[in-house]
């Protein structure tokens, strides 16, 4: 077990592509760190550099106390789980798991013991004599895990290990991997493009964009205090709702003018974002999480603001109702939002070009909302997120 330190690590390909830029990251001993970001953000490259499958152009990579920049993968004491599992098709499950140990000329009894232990842990016992092609996707995934576990390495590296599984199995394996990692207490770096995996599995999550690390923190911290519009839009499902609002100064207080609605800036909000005063008379990007909005008619307490809307679509999920509507404010358009839209376009969020930004609110199931209804949405204005629309950075102190 060891910590992994990346100090100003860069990857520049021969064709000039700068895949990873000045990556600073410390993964603590026994920590489960998730690297997340849209495809092409450099997360897999970063992982492959840690594994030693990719050269490091500049910077220092340390595993434990050793600088491993030029060490070959086998000398780094790491184990990797590949997206494709990369099982050796001509070997049985047992041989697959034992391959790394056999190469290290370990004693036969010890190999047997370790394979049995790993098989026990992953419930692979009855499958040990089979070949990979006789296994289902989930079983293959387990074998790939087993191959990493038996090595008892200092660091686990996982490259989107669940992306080839169907949705149901993915949820199950997600919990299983997290459990195995917890039991073994091995430092783990896990790469995924799925923010739900990142949120549910990681002790900490590192969000990357275009080769640059955006923010590192606990999943909850990232969710509640995103540093940039990109992180705000990437972490959380549905993504954070965002619109342009004008900061207005009135009688010593501030308000945010979001389309035709005025959102008061409470003292609590201002205390958290004191720098907002400097934006008086200018536009800021206002972010509202879906759960910070509710049907005003069933809202308990006094809402900070009421937003009159026309509902376009409702999705009842039982525990909550997702309500879609358009807001008459201007859309926030930055590099980040373009990238997010592109990323979402490849998954399941169609982006309609309507007059205003499209918001999704999570109403409590007590609401009797129907599509097409005109109603007021209560907004918890203490929990607004504020960003500079030109730089995309959060407005704080």
């Amino acid at each position, binding site marked *: 077990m060891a910590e992994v330190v990346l100090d100003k690590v860069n990857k520049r390909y021969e064709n000039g592509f700068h895949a990873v830029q000045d990556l600073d990251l410390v993964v603590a001993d026994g920590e489960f760190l998730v690297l997340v970001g849209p495809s092409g953000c450099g997360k897999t490259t970063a992982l492959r550099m840690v594994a030693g499958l990719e050269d490091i152009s500049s910077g220092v990579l340390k595993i434990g106390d050793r600088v491993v920049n030029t060490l070959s*993968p086998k000398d780094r004491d790491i184990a990797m789980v590949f997206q494709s599992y990369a099982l050796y098709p001509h070997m049985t499950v047992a041989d697959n798991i034992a391959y790394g140990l056999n190469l290290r000329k370990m004693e036969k009894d010890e190999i047997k013991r370790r394979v049995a232990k790993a098989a026990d842990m992953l419930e692979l016992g009855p499958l040990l004599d089979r070949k990979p092609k006789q296994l289902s996707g989930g079983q293959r995934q387990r074998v790939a895990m087993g191959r990493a576990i038996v090595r008892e390495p200092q660091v686990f590296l996982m490259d989107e290990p669940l992306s080839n599984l169907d949705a149901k199995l993915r949820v199950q394996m997600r919990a299983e991997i997290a459990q195995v990692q917890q039991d073994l207490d091995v430092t783990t770096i896990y790469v995924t493009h799925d923010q739900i995996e990142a949120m549910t599995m990681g002790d900490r999550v590192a969000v990357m964009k275009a080769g640059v690390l955006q923010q590192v923190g606990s999943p909850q911290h990232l969710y509640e205090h995103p540093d940039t519009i990109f992180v705000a839009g990437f972490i959380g499902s549905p993504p954070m709702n965002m619109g342009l609002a004008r900061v207005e100064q009135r009688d010593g207080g501030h308000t945010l003018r979001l389309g035709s609605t005025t959102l008061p800036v409470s003292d609590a909000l201002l205390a958290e974002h004191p720098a907002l005063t400097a934006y008086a008379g200018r536009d800021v990007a206002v972010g509202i999480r879906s759960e910070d909005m509710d049907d005003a008619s069933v809202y308990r307490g006094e809402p900070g603001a009421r937003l009159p809307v026309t509902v376009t679509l409702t999705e009842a999920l039982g525990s909550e109702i997702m309500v879609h509507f358009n807001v008459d404010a201007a859309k926030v358009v930055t590099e980040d939002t373009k990238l997010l839209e592109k990323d979402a376009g490849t998954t399941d969020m169609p982006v309609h070009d309507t007059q205003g930004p499209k918001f999704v609110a999570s109403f409590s199931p007590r609401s009797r909302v129907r599509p097409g209804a005109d109603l007021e949405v209560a907004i918890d204005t203490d929990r607004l997120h504020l960003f500079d629309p030109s730089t995309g950075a959060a407005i704080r102190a």
Partner: protein
Amino acid sequence: MAEITSSPAALAHPGPDEPHPAQVVQLGSAKGGWFRQVGWRHLVGCVALVFSLFPILFVLSAALNPVGTLSSAQLIPTGASLTNFEELFTETQYPRWFFNTMLIGLLSSAASMFISAAAAYAFSRFRFRGRRPALLAILLVQMFPALLAIVVLYLMFTTITEYYPAIGFNTPWALILIYLGGALGVNTWLMKGFFDTIPKDLDESAKVDGATHAQIFFGIILPLVRPILAVTALLGFIATVSDVMLANIFLTDPESKTVAIGLYGLVAAGRARETNFGVFAAGAIITAIPTVVLFQILQRYIVGGITAGAVKG
């Protein structure tokens, strides 16, 4: 095949104690369908079989025909005897030729298979300066048949024979060397294409597991490319065994001849119609045996490879 055909046939011919004649009529129409769906394939198969077996039958009959001239050859010989085989082993140096052929064929096909696999592995897995030019050069060079280089090869080996007679004319080694070079191009390309289909993740996984390049090559890659190894080995063996042109130039000693030129010498004396084709045919049949055996051994891998690729995952 038998299983597929037998079940509709059984349906089409219900037993005589079949209680429902109406059903028999219905099944009778299914009988016509049997020929349209399955039967015609048998017909095509039979025609193809006759077509390909005819020359073999002819050679077999010639080998058994004690008279043994081309003019007296018939498909059904007038009398059968093994005199031709006897003559082959007593009057000619056939055993010697056979040994030479096997030595050259097995060694050169095995060695060229290995060299090509090593080259293909490098071209498929490593990225190095000059990789593309080298691949193109191989492709271009192999387009010219070895025949074109015969004069050059002859001159080269004249000198080599002077200094190193052990690998010069009239030794199997000279021929093996030339065959190695001749087959390298095609085999490398053929294999590289196959190597490229094996995911690179496997190499990397083995690398992380602690394998060296050699361990990856022998332990992971080679077992997975068995089908293409079998194909190249088989093609190489057949090509060397049946080669007359190069062998004829390099092996002139009766001692060092291969079967192909040895047998050719028996009938090429110019009086083709009177020569004893029986002995020639007997030699040809014996020579065919190793190829058939080799094919039987390797067939498992070739077919196995085809089906393994057909099923996804």
